């Protein structure tokens, strides 16, 4: 049988229908689809895809098991290096990771690795009984700050090694950005809850509404008998543009907008108590995954016009290809090479328009992307009633302010040794967005994993050297 150049399409909810609901957009492969797609894998002797994965999932191995219909074994292979497979199958930017290295990609489309990962993870949730390995307690205690992807991964790995692990989470629900940031239609919250439950079944304790740096300091955690601390507190502080009119009613940070919708379920108001005011003409400033999430939420909350406003060009948009594609299908307008300069208000102080200026691309800047330059005299007013700033986030300074010896870069990221995640303070490790600034779920997981390994080695060695 000749190999197919194209991958099996992912079934999705119809774009007209999904615009008005929060149900998951990508529906997942059926067994037949998974078998057909898995058969495309060449099972390379030297699998480059594994190198492209930040947690080195043994990709050809699990795909081969799919072709043999050994789904439980397949998911076990994935889970031996990735504790959140149902999440990663949905939100990883596979096109720049594993799939970018696939040999098939040279002549046609790479194997749809992410979709297959999701298939086996979902299969287990439906049919299987997630196995909890036998664990022998080793009598040592580790505290984890933040129940997001980095913290959950680090906790899961350490629990398997026998550590008594407690995660301290500032919000009332664990999951971090998976719960407050990524919308239901891209990552159903039931899936996050199931992944969190699995980590709990490994013996990990999770204390919610517990803010390290406020309710208790890191120093006090050591006093309580913890042998090591891992910080996975994320990048929670929203950035604003510092332009006039940003404090008008109807201007949100993407963090606030998405937290109201995802964590607090404002889209179900008044069944849920948290309200949101999302208008008919919504502009989202920025073009990353968070911006795509926000603009697609705006559509679902009834916007007639949902717009991305971005100062660079199409090529420079940082969002996953699939998110941009889905947003376009749903009718999101893209106003590229456009930069807001001022938000206009009505007599009651609500947003009534946004003045923008057109941009053109000049020489490459530090990020390697061509620098956008304003075109003089090109100002115009966009007709909008809601503005959402999705410009990125930076780490929360509370921990640095309250922990002696814990140092951060000027922009807020914690200083660590890249291989191990060791911070400047002995027995304190860190990883994920708290170190890198806003990045991806899988990179945070990779950092949590690396730190777990080093924590284990350090505590095993009994060395006091740092």
């Amino acid at each position, binding site marked *: 049988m000749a190999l197919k150049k194209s991958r099996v399409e992912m079934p999705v909810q119809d774009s007209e229908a999904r615009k008005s609901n929060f149900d998951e957009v990508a529906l997942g492969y059926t067994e037949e689809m998974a078998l057909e797609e898995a058969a495309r894998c060449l099972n390379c002797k030297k699998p480059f895809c594994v190198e492209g994965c930040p947690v080195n999932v043994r990709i050809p191995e699990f795909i081969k098991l799919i072709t043999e219909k050994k789904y439980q074994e397949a998911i076990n292979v994935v889970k031996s290096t990735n504790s959140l497979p149902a999440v990663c199958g949905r939100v990883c930017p596979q096109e720049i990771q594993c799939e970018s290295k696939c040999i098939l990609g040279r002549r046609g489309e790479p194997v749809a690795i992410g979709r297959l990962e999701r298939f086996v993870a979902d299969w287990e949730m439906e049919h299987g009984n997630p196995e909890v390995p036998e664990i022998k307690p080793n009598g040592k205690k580790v505290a984890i700050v933040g129940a997001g992807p980095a913290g959950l991964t680090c906790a899961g790995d350490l629990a398997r090694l026998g550590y008594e692990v407690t995660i301290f989470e500032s919000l*009332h629900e664990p999951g971090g950005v998976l719960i407050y940031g990524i919308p239901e239609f891209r990552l159903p919250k039931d899936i996050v809850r199931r992944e969190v439950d699995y980590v709990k079944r490994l013996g990990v304790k999770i204390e919610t*509404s517990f803010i390290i740096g406020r309710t208790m300091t890191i120093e006090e955690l050591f006093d309580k008998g913890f042998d090591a601390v891992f910080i996975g507190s994320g990048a*929670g*502080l929203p950035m604003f543009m510092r332009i006039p009119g940003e*404090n008008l009613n109807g201007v949100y940070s993407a963090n606030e907008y998405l937290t109201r919708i995802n964590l*607090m379920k404002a889209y179900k108001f008044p069944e*849920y108590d*948290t309200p949101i005011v999302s208008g008919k003409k919504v502009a989202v400033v920025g073009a990353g995954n968070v911006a795509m999430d926000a603009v697609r939420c705006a559509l679902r909350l009834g916007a007639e016009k949902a717009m991305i406003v971005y100062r660079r060009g199409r090529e420079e948009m940082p969002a996953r290809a699939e998110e941009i594609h889905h947003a376009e299908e749903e009718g999101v307008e893209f106003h590229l090479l456009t930069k807001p300069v001022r938000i206009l208000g009505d007599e009651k102080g609500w947003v009534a328009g946004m003045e923008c200026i057109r941009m053109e691309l000049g020489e490459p800047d530090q990020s390697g992307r061509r620098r956008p330059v304003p075109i003089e005299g090109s100002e115009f007013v966009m007709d909008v009633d809601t503005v959402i700033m999705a410009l990125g986030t930076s780490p*929360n300074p509370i921990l640095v302010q309250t922990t002696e010896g814990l140092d951060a870069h000027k922009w807020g990221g914690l200083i660590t040794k890249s291989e191990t995640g060791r911070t400047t303070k002995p027995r304190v490790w860190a990883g994920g967005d708290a170190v890198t600034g806003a990045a991806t779920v899988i990179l945070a997981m990779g950092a949590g994993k690396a730190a777990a390994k080093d924590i284990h080695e350090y505590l095993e060695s009994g060395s006091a050297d740092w």
Partner: protein
Amino acid sequence: MNQILRKRVLTPVTKEIVVAAPHIARKAQPGQFVILRVSQEGERIPLTIADFDRDEGTITLVYQEVGYTTRLLGKLEPHDHILDLAGPLGLPAELPDKGRVIAVGGGVGVAPLLPKCKELHRRGINLISIIGARSSDLIILEDEMRACSDELHICTDDGSRGFKGFVSDKLKQMLETELNPDEIDEVIAIGPIPMMKATCAAAKEFGVKTWVSMNPIMVDGTGMCGACRVTVGGETKFACVDGPMFDGHLVDWDEAWRRANSYREQEQIANERCRCGGDRQWL
């Protein structure tokens, strides 16, 4: 955790609860607040810590039943638990070590004022307190305020008790006639936005520094969402991490008022449901 141990009804719409929260009590300082949630569908609201007892491991919260969530909270009784309670949040108040201070509290704002007054009293500050409400039955924590103040003045809008008029009018009158503004180190004013705005205006006339405690809409309370943006001296601050206490003469009051009313319509929808019993009859 988070169990309500005692409850007092201060006025028909204002209640005081003492909650077992040893972790928060251990760290709490005057000026800080908590975020709480009452039900699984509930919103997160900030409430200032009105008092704390480290030995007993409790914090005291005082709230007026003005919105949906505070009404739900009002239905909880001793032995009930508050679903989620996080804190202490915000920066502690910076209080002087010596001198003379005027504390001005309007309505339920007297509750967050009290821990600062207690601390000032402990530090030996000469404290003049002015507290007020619409009418005499709405005056709260009078005995507690009297116990830590060198002078206590009561005001009511309708004249049913004490000075007839606003607390800001009383402050102005005192600065004009009885007190030497130069001898006043600072004013601390806490209450509804119009009351704090008027109090700042009165104090500014006499060049007296004035601290206020902002209580804007918040979601997470840890600096994550930016809902609590307030303009202070032309700069955007987050009340949850940069405050909640700010120099009142620098606050953009009109913006604060506007932002406080962002969800007026939604609040009415929620309140309607609460009055009818809605889907929360189990409470």
